[in-house]
C-alpha cells in the first residue's frame, strides 16, 4: 500500500468501502479527475473566502454576470483567451515530451517586443507589416527558447529554471523598451513604447475580437492532427513516454527535444504579436503580459497536453481571469485570485493522482466492478484532496 492508500483506507475503515489502485488509467478518466480536482479546488477556495468573511456566493454570481451578462463580457473573455491559448498550446506541446516550459511569459513578451520593433519602424501596407510582425514575433519567441532548449537537449540541464530565469530578463527588456529606447515621448501618464499603427481585422459581428482568434484554433487543430496521424507526433509521444526507449528505437531524441522546444517558444512568441495587434493594445509596457504565461501553464496542466482540452480549458481560465478583473473593481484583490490559482493547480495535481484509484466494496474484494462504483469514487476523492490545499 502506498502512503495514500494507507491513510485513505485508515479513514475508510468505518465504511464498507476500500481504496484500490487501478491497474490501468486511461486518458479520459485522468482528464475527468483533473477537472473534478479543479472544481473541488474552486469549492475549497469558496469555503476559504466564506471563512475569511467574504460572500463567496455573491462573488460567484458577480463573476457569472460579468462573463455572461453581456456581449462585452463574452468578448472580454475571448480577448483574454487568445494570448492564454497561445501560451497554453506551447506548454501543452512541450508537455507531450514531459518538458516543462515555464518561460512562456518571457517568450510571449519577446515576441510582442519584436512585433513592436517591426511595427514602429517598418512602413508599408498594413497587411504586409502585420505579416512581418507575426514572422518576427515567431522567430523571436523561438530564439528566446534557444539556450534553454539546447541546454536541455544536449547538456541535460533542467529546463524549468532556465526558462523561468529568462522571464525576468524578458520583463526587464520590455521595461527598458517602454522607459528607454522605444519610449513614446508624447505619452505623459503611462510610460510605454510607441504605438503600432496597425491592427488585425475584426471578426464579423464582433465589437473588439479580431481574426487573431482563428490562429490558436488553427494551431490546435494542426497539432491535434500531427499527434494523431504523423510519425513525428508519434516519435514525440514516444520520447515523452520513455526517452531511453525512444533513443534505442532510433529516434534522434536530443534533436527532437530541441526542435519541439523551439516550436513551443515560437507559438508563445506569436501569441505576443496577436495580443499586440488587438485594437487598443498596440503599445507595450511592463504590464503587457497580465500573467498570460502563467495562466497558459495552468490551462496546459488542466488539459494534460490534449490540444482540444487546451481550447476548453483556455476559455475556462480566461473566463475566471476576466471575472477576476471585473471583481477587482468590486473590491476583490488580485492577490486573492493568485491564491485561488494556487489552490486550483493543487486540485488538478491531486485529481491526477486520484484517477489512479477506485473505491471498491469490501465484500466484493478483487471484483472488477462496473461503472457505478467508479463514477461514485471520483468526486469525493478529488474534493477531499482539494481540501488539503
Amino acid at each position, binding site marked *: 500500500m502506498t502512503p495514500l492508500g494507507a491513510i485513505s483506507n485508515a479513514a475508510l475503515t468505518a465504511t464498507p468501502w476500500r481504496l484500490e489502485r487501478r491497474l490501468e488509467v486511461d486518458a479520459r478518466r485522468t482528464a475527468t479527475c483533473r477537472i473534478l480536482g479543479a472544481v473541488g479546488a474552486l469549492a475549497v477556495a469558496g469555503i476559504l473566502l466564506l471563512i475569511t468573511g467574504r460572500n463567496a456566493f455573491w462573488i460567484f454570481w458577480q463573476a457569472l454576470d460579468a462573463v455572461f451578462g453581456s456581449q462585452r463580457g463574452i468578448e472580454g473573455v475571448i480577448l483574454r483567451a487568445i494570448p492564454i491559448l497561445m501560451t497554453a498550446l506551447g506548454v501543452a506541446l512541450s508537455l507531450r515530451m514531459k518538458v516543462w516550459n515555464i518561460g512562456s511569459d518571457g517568450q510571449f513578451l519577446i515576441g510582442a517586443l519584436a512585433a513592436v520593433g517591426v511595427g514602429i519602424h517598418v512602413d508599408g501596407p498594413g497587411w504586409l507589416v502585420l505579416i512581418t510582425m507575426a514572422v518576427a514575433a515567431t522567430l523571436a519567441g523561438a530564439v528566446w527558447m534557444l539556450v534553454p532548449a539546447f541546454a536541455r537537449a544536449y547538456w541535460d540541464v533542467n529546463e524549468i529554471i532556465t526558462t523561468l530565469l529568462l522571464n525576468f530578463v524578458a520583463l526587464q527588456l520590455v521595461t527598458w523598451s517602454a522607459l*528607454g529606447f522605444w519610449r513614446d515621448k508624447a505619452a505623459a501618464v503611462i510610460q510605454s513604447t510607441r504605438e503600432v499603427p496597425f491592427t488585425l481585422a475584426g471578426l464579423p459581428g464582433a465589437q473588439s475580437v479580431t481574426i487573431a482568434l482563428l490562429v490558436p484554433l488553427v494551431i490546435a487543430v494542426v497539432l491535434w492532427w500531427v499527434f494523431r496521424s504523423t510519425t513525428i507526433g508519434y516519435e514525440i509521444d514516444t520520447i515523452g513516454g520513455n526517452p531511453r526507449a525512444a533513443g534505442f528505437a532510433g529516434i534522434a531524441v536530443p534533436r527532437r527535444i530541441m526542435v519541439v522546444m523551439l516550436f513551443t517558444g515560437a507559438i508563445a512568441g506569436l501569441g505576443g504579436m496577436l495580443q499586440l495587434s488587438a485594437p487598443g493594445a498596440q503599445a507595450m509596457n511592463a504590464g503587457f503580459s497580465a500573467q498570460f504565461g502563467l495562466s497558459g501553464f495552468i490551462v496546459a496542466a488542466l488539459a494534460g497536453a490534449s490540444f482540444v482540452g487546451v481550447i476548453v480549458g483556455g476559455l475556462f481560465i480566461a473566463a475566471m481571469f476576466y471575472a477576476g478583473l471585473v471583481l477587482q473593481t468590486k473590491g476583490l484583490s488580485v492577490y486573492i485570485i493568485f491564491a485561488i490559482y494556487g489552490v486550483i493547480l493543487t486540485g488538478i495535481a491531486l485529481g491526477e493522482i486520484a484517477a489512479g484509484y477506485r473505491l471498491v466494496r469490501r465484500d466484493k474484494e478483487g471484483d472488477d466492478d462496473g461503472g457505478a462504483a467508479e463514477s461514485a469514487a471520483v468526486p469525493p476523492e478529488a474534493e477531499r484532496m482539494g481540501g488539503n490545499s
Partner: protein
Amino acid sequence: MILAIIENAFLSLIGSAIPASAVVMLAATGAMLGERVGVLNLGQEGLIGIGAVYSVIAVLSWGVESPWVAMLIGMIAAAVAGLIFAVCVVAFRASQVLVGLALALGGIGLSNQLGTNRNGTPIQTLFREVNPGGVLDDNDLVSAFLFHDPVVYIAYIGLPVVLWFALFRTRHGMNMRAVGENPAAADAVGVSVTGWRIFYSVLGAALTGAGGAYMVLSFTPTWSPDIARGRGWIALAVVIFAGWRPGWAVAGALLYGSMISLDTTAQARGWGLPFLGASDLSFLLSMLPYVVTLVAILIPAGAVKLGRRVRSTAAPAALAIPYSREER
C-alpha cells in the same frame, strides 16, 4: 580615476553583496535539504513571501519584540505551507512540479493579501549587526566584509558547514542521500522514505521562510508586495549551480549577490558608459543577475559534456520522482 572607481566598486560590492544574497543562501539551503531527499519544491518564492509576511505580522500586529521570535513565527508559517506541499507530493504522490508551482503562486498571493495593509510600514524590531568595535571598525573594507547580522553568519557559515557535515560525514546523512538517490534501497534497510521526505522538506521550507523573515527583519526592512522578487527562483538555480553541495551554494549566492549590488551601486553612483547613459546602463545591469545565474548553471553542465569534469553536477537520481513500494 578608474582605479578609484574600481576600489569604490569593490567596497560597495562586498558591502552589499553579502546581505543581499543571505536570503538566497537560506532559501538555497532549504531547497537543497528537500532535494537531497528527492523532493523538488518549486514553491520557494511563495515560502519566502509567507515567511516574510508572518514575521511582519508578528512584529506589527502581535507586538513581538525579539527579531528571533518574529523569525521563528515566519519559519513556522512557512513550515505549515511546506507541510501541505509535502503531504500532497510525498503522501499523495502528486506532481512535484505542479504542486510546487501552486505553492509559489498561492504563497505569493496569500502573502501579498496578508501584507496589504502593512505596505511600507518600517519595521523597528531588527537584527543588530555583530560589531566588536575598536581598531577594525575604522577600515571600511573590513567592516563591510566582516560585520553583519548574526543571521548572515548562520546562513553563510553555520548552515553550510552543518549540512555538509551531516550529509557527508554521518550515517544519518548517508541515509538521507540514499533516500534521494535510491529510495527503494533506503526503504529496504529500514529508512522510512515517506517520513524522511516529509520531515526534511518541511525543515527546508522553514529555512526558506527564515530567508523571507530575514528580508523584512534586516534587509529591506519593511513589507512590500512580491517581496521575494525572484529570489526564490534564483535559490533553486543556485542549488543546481552548486551541484547539490552546500559549499558551492555559498559561491553561487555570492555571485548573484554581487550582480545585484553591481546594479544598485551603478544606480546610486550614476555610472554610465560612453555609448550608454546611466539609466540605460541600469536597465542592462538589472538583467545581469538572471543572465549570470543562467550562465552559471550552464557552465558546469557544459564542462561535463565537453569532458572537463570540474565536479559532480548530477542531481539526486530520484529527484522529483514519487516513491511507492508498489512500483519498486
